[in-house]
């Protein structure tokens, strides 16, 4: 029997398209009829969405400048 634990364990595989045909079907059916797993599914969606909104710290300017200086040097060498 496909359980809530199975559904919870397959949340990422489902999103990655990595579940085989039958498992994918069981997962879809289970999430459709189980309100708790539907809530879990929604929580996963929201978590992934929020994680994708976390802004990155900019690269330290000295590092950017050092890389840029090498990049400019490359341009000068190839002229």
């Amino acid at each position, binding site marked *: 029997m496909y359980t*809530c*634990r199975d559904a919870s364990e397959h949340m990422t595989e489902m999103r990655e398209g990595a579940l085989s045909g039958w498992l994918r079907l069981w997962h879809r059916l289970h999430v459709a009829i189980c*309100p708790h797993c539907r809530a*879990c599914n929604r929580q996963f969606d929201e978590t992934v969405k929020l994680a994708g909104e*976390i802004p*990155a710290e900019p690269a330290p300017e000295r*590092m950017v400048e050092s890389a840029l200086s090498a990049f400019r040097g490359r341009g000068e060498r190839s002229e």
Partner: protein
Amino acid sequence: MTQGQGNDDAALLAGLRAGDEAAFRKLVGAMHRGLMRVAMACVGSEAAAEEVVQETWLAVVGQLDRFEGRSSLRTWIGTILVNRARTRGIRDKRSVPFSALAREETDPVEPERFSAAGFWKTPPARWDDAPEELVLRKEARGAIEAEIQTLPETQRTVVTLRDLEGWTSEEVCNVLGLTETNQRVLLHRGRQRLRAALERYHAGTGR
């Protein structure tokens, strides 16, 4: 590598080879967090990781004309970084392969929430009102960000690359030397931990 990504890479590469400084600056900025995370996982300290990232950019500049486009630009740059980090790790006597660490960090998250039969004992709360307001979303992001800092090294690296930086699973597997399955397990465990942290945040705000 997807078709779209291949086209983007080709355009970017053409710009870089033509000396487009703005494109290079943008690339350095866009890849910084991901590269730092991978370097941190390999060498352990922030200072050493910064040096590795810096060396990587110098190597990228030096080898730009040799890149043949057989992988994505991100994979190529990431692989250069991992090779440099590995050399550095060996020098600093910290050379555990990423894939070896990964095997140790895949325990289930919150197993106590399920009964022996596999059904929810403590079900997740329904979030009917996922925060839309800017301030609340910022707080919720903060809760996730704080949890990311506490994830085991390999989960943290995979989650950062996949969910924060938008790398593909193929890129992550190629750069970190993970199998698809292992990468997915690490991503899942990391996401479960973040989801649990967000759930605690929601419980705290009474939403």
